[in-house]
């Protein structure tokens, strides 16, 4: 059976010698909702970067949908990334484009038709609750709203997997909850989700699969887990 994501003996050593990940073996199935937890510097961001090939592993193999992405030619990388929706911690929105344009942009990049774009973008913005801010620019939005735009952009092309790095990092608890609700909804529609987070309450409440990293090692992999495994 093909796993959505499979890592085999993956290690990452950054130039300069910092060992960010050590011998990671993990399988994530289609439709799973996975939390990635661990103290700062544990390697969570690195784990995610390896998946959408911002970084290459130093050792080991990574398969996505059965395809070995460590062997991709530079020309094939864009097509891998189109299967993934990434929500960055710093949002990475285009400041001079409006909310609508930022989301539409992701569709233009993959050469979707204008008709599709006109149909799909408002729908996605409604889903994340931003219909009324369609023409605002990122700097006119709150952190939570920018996070929603980033999420809308990640979702607009119907990716197989959504990856989010600390999506609630600087949001208040209520807004964080709303974002998590959204994730849950997306997941119910069959999208695989991987969320790196420090938000203990959310992880404890959601009871999803938890991967815990420490010093670059995978120390815990638990179905319906909590933030700390000890208690």
């Amino acid at each position, binding site marked *: 059976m093909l796993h959505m994501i499979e890592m085999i003996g993956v290690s990452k050593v950054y130039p300069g010698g910092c060992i960010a990940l050590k011998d990671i073996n993990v399988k994530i199935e289609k439709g799973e909702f996975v939390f990635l937890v661990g103290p700062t510097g544990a390697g969570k961001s690195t784990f995610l970067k390896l998946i959408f090939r911002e970084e290459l592993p130093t050792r080991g193999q990574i398969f996505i949908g059965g395809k070995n992405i460590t062997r991709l030619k530079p020309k094939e990388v864009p097509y891998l*990334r189109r299967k993934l929706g990434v929500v960055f911690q710093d949002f*990475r929105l*285009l400041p001079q484009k409006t909310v609508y344009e930022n989301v539409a942009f992701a569709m233009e*990049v993959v*050469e979707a038709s204008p008709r599709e774009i006109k149909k799909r973008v408002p729908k996605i913005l409604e889903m994340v609750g931003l219909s009324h801010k369609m023409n605002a620019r990122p700097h006119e939005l709150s952190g939570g709203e920018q996070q929603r735009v980033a999420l809308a952009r990640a979702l607009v092309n119907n990716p197989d997997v959504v990856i989010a790095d600390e999506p609630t990092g600087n949001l208040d608890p209520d807004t964080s909850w709303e974002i998590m609700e959204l994730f849950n909804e997306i997941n119910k529609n069959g999208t695989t989700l991987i969320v790196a987070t420090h938000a203990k309450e959310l992880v404890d409440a959601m009871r999803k699969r938890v991967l815990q990293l420490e010093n670059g090692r995978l120390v815990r992999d638990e179905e319906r887990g909590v933030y700390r495994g000890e208690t």
Partner: protein
Amino acid sequence: MKLRTIRYFFKEAFVNLFRNGWMSLASIGAVASALIIFGSFLIISINFDYIAKNVESQVEITAYLEDSVNQLVLNQVEYKIKSIDGVKEVVFVSKEQALEEFKKQVGEELLEGIENPLPHSFRIKVETPQEVAAVAEKIQQIPGVEEVKYGKGVVEKLFKITHWVRLVGFAIMVIFAIISIFIISNTIRITVFARRREINIMKYIGATDWFVRWPFLIEGMLLGFTGSLIAIVLLTVGYNYLYEMVKLNIPIISLLPIEEFYDYSLGLLTIGTFLGAFGSGFSIKKFLRV
């Protein structure tokens, strides 16, 4: 590639061009000044070339024949001259024709009643002006030829000068072409650098390299095209002025006609556009490696 994608590329290029207002103006200015300098040297160089060719083509050999030659010897001499390698054209000038010409130069009355003292001669043009000396040498050997004249010394000196003018003109042109590329790629690098975040984001949401590259290439080409257009207009106006000035004040020098300069303008426009594309492609390269 889909049509709407091409439209998107042009839209992006134009939007960015205007959004970067001052930066775009700076780039256009850089292209224009580089090409004006480059074009000025081009004009100087092609004119030196033109003048040199003009002077060279006027160099001819005159072979004076011995007084005693009869028609038979005359025919033999003509045949022998024509069979020398590098001879392009041979014209026979009889005693009588020579006298007529001479009369025209000095006036009829002066020569009234004097027996014709001028010899028969041949005027010879050669294939390449550099061969003049060698050909003259060979003609001198032909029996029946008394004397050969071709502006010895002067011709050699002229060739030396035109040779160096060409060489120096060419070197200066190459140097300024390199400087132009450098200025353009640097200015476009600034524009690309200002948008490195945007490029980065595009790549992370799955844009191909060419999708990212095209709007920048088009933008670069538009900058190069506009810059070279400005340069051409200024150069044409300037050259027109220079042409008229020289024609009026130094009539013996004839510059390259302005119409022929238009061909070079088209070349400059192509070069400018190409430099723009080259410069932006060059600058964007390292930002695509993500």
